């Protein structure tokens, strides 16, 4: 049974999002890292890039699969977790601790289109 944290919001494409003020911290869920297998590579844009909700902001690769990363919210990338980029295996060992990017929220209302923990659990069934 994959882990789902209560205080996070989720996308149907298995990204999670933690909102602190007007900043969204983004990563991928336990289910995602488990389906991918050992992550070998992570690629994202640059600080300053604009991302759009549900559009691609990067890609994650394992030995047998590759997946696009879709942004839960729109906004500007203000920080990238270089440690995870250099050590992508952290995504497997700690998917909710290993955040990938931080985005300055353009529009709080977009959060309404995301799933809460129970909503995400429901789609995992």
């Amino acid at each position: 049974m994959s882990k789902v944290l209560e205080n996070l919001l989720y996308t149907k494409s298995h990204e999670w999002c933690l909102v602190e003020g007007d900043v969204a911290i983004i990563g991928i869920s336990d289910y995602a890292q488990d389906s991918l297998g050992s992550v070998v590579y992570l690629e994202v844009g640059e600080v300053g890039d604009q991302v759009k909700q549900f559009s691609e902001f990067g890609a994650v690769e394992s030995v047998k699969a590759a997946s696009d990363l879709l942004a839960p919210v729109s906004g500007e990338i203000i920080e990238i977790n270089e440690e995870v980029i250099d050590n992508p295996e952290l995504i497997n060992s700690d998917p909710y601790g290993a955040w990938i990017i931080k985005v300055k929220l353009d529009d709080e209302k977009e959060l309404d289109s995301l799933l809460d923990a129970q909503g995400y659990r429901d789609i995992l069934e």
Partner: protein
Amino acid sequence: MMYKYFPHTEADLKEMLKNIGVDSVTDLFSDLPEAVIYQGELDLPKAHSEIELREKMRELAEKNKQLIAFRGAGSYDVYTPAVIPALTSRQEFLTSYTPYQPEISQGTLQYIFEFQSLITELTNLDISNASVYDGATATMEAMFMATAQTRRNKVLISSALNPLVIEVLKTYARFRNLELKFISNDELRTSKEDLLEKLDESVAAVIIQNPNFFGVIEDAEAIVNAIHTNKSLLIMNVDPSTLAVLKTPGEIGADIACGDGQTLGIPKSFGGPYVGFIAATEKLLRKMPGRICGITTDTKGRRGFVLTLQAREQHIRREKANSNICSNQSLMALHTTIYMSLLGKEGLVAAAKRAYYNAHYLERKLLETGKFERVSSQPFFKEFVLKTDLDISKFNQYLIEKGFLSGLDLSCYGPNFKGCILFCATEVRTQAEIDEFIKTVEAYHV
């Protein structure tokens, strides 16, 4: 029904049909609509026995004329050491599949690793793949690596690139809405001035060939900085047999080197199979198409080889893959790997220099006949262009009748090339052959 490639006896058929639970093989095709079953007999040739086949093929081979080549233009007369076919025809190499099951494909994987290593050494770049189809499609893939990396849509191409390579680039570019612009040449060398004029922020890459189609050695160092300042990539289409002596793409600062490995011991073969290669800087690793082999360890800590970074490829990325390439030219990569190993450090230099001196001797002798004049004063490697007043097609036809494949008639490339011939002498030409050729040229009277 007996045929040497079908093992099924009457008894086998009976037993197998019984096991399956049908009366005849045709029952297994019951899903096929009547309308798609071909009625009657296809008008194919009758089955040839091996003896008849040998005779037929011999006849066909004899309808082709073997000529002493003084023509290059993308396909070169080279020496194929006997060791190469002896090794590449080994069934373990020839009849094996793509190494997706690495535990029983270590032979293939290791030679791919050696090929990658040799290509990076010759080009002096960081990474290489397991081969692509040919030099032209390698250049096409390099072009798309650059557009994917820079996200720009225009590519500048030297007009001194092999015209057939340009044709392939044009085909692919058109379907992907890439804009191609051509850089003019000056005395058969890519014009720096024209390049600088055409560089703008929509240019993903600049593609030059070295030595170029006319045999001339380009001055790539003079343009690389401007290209990089423009945040574009420099792609060099190169002849790997010259890289043992010529300044390498890596030293020049090129981002991608691509080309055809035919000059590394592959017979001319009427155009194929050859082998394309792509080498690039580290940061382009994930844009590199095709298979890549890497080193790793097994459960017992022993060294082993595997296909790696497969998440870039079509079988995983599907429509998001950078390229659709699946099968490459693996056995030809082995062919050239053995060639590079046999010739080695010394031999590759010796062969390159020999081609250089042969071509320069040929040029001097052709000029001495008085029938030709120089078109460019730029340095050349093993090919060069001369101009003549002779009717080239009649002249070339005469030489064919004497057993020589003379230089390529360039007149079809535009008014500037009227009367121009592209000659070539590789490392396998002997002085006797060249002298005989010259004698025949001298004897030519209109």
